[in-house]
């Protein structure tokens, strides 16, 4: 690329440069050629960019923007659906948990009630038997207590007969028993 510009040797161009003096840029005999050519190139490039390159790139970039925004929208939607389903599942779970708790509580209550009833029934039976037994004991004791005075009279009569040699009358025995 640089080949065409480097065919001059330094020696000759140095001589030229020093001979003319000043900046080479101010040698206006080359201006018109450069300016005209640059204008042509500039307008060529301008039309190429305006009509070909910029629309192509803008199309791709718009397409990309649409793709990205579409994907984001889809993702948002899917996320919303997932959240909704999660909420539903959560609700189901809560309901099931509440049901289970209620069932457990009901079963516990029923079992407790049955146990209480059975206990009460057995207690009644046992109490009845205790009462019966107590009644029998009282009756036996009363009978025994009834016999005690007879035994005391007999024992007193026998003691009196042995001591005095003669039997005491029943009235005397009763009197004596009452005095003790």
């Amino acid at each position: 690329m640089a080949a065409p510009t480097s065919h001059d040797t330094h020696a000759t161009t140095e001589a030229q440069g020093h001979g003319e003096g000043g900046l080479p840029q101010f040698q206006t005999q080359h201006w018109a050629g450069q300016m005209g050519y640059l204008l042509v190139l500039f307008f060529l490039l301008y039309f190429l960019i305006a009509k070909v390159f910029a629309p192509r790139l803008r199309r791709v970039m718009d397409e990309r923007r649409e793709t990205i925004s579409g994907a984001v929208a889809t993702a948002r939607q899917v996320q919303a659906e997932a959240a909704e389903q999660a909420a539903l599942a959560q609700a189901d779970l809560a309901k099931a948990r509440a049901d289970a708790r209620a069932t457990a509580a009901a079963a516990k209550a029923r079992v407790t009630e049955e146990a209480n009833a059975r206990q009460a029934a057995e207690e009644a039976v046992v109490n009845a038997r205790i009462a019966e037994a107590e009644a029998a004991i009282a009756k036996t004791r009363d009978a025994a207590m009834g016999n005690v005075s007879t035994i005391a009279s007999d024992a007193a009569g026998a003691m009196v007969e042995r001591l005095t040699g003669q039997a005491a009358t029943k009235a005397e025995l009763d009197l004596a028993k009452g005095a003790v």
Partner: protein
Amino acid sequence: MADPLHQFKIQPLVDFGAVNLPVFGHTQLAITNSHVAMTVAFVAIVLFLQLVTSSAKVVPGRLQTAGESLFDMIDGVTDSIIGHDGRKYFPFVFSLFLLVLVMNLLGMFLSFTATSQLAVTVTFAALTILLVIGVGFLKNGLGFFKLFWPASAPLVLRPVVGAIEFLSFLLRPVTLALRLFGNMLGGHVALKIFAGFVVALGAGAFVGEGLGLWGLPIAALSMTMVVALTALEFLVAFLQAFVFAVLASIYLNDVVNLGEGH
């Protein structure tokens, strides 16, 4: 030492003879090294854009990403500075930017820098300012002159501020052309001078002339400068193209949105 200005010399390669043109006076018509550099820049830009856009995909490759980032950068400039109408002026600013950028960059590789020619930078500046004036009159008619009548300034000061505005408008093409020209000229002259030191002092050390062996450290220092300046010149090459594009957008914005943002 080699003449640092030699690199800017126009060398006719194919001569078509001389003519007298109305404005330019004595003119030599020829295909010169400047024409070659401009053509190489133009062909490189078109090839690059063709490669970038011919098989442009939604998921871009490396080359397409590079092209799109340049495109996006200038699109962002025109869009943010000119606003809604920015897209209409994008091809102009993008052409300007690419031509200046590639001519600057080719100057780092070829022996000739087209943008260090005053004729080239004047052409870019004239194109820009003529477009600004044209758009100004087409869009606003004679309202274009409101550009020099600052409504926000106090009435007493308006003629003065207006005169300053007018003067600054006249200077715009001059500064546009001279900024780019000066940067390219200065950078390449500095590069050439330091590179010349390296060779001259190095050779002097070997044949025992000039500074002799003392020339070696200075040659080494100059070499360091050449490397650093080369890096700097790459930065300047890009920066000046970008500055040109931004300024063109700002000047266009002045007339496109005349009386809106002032």
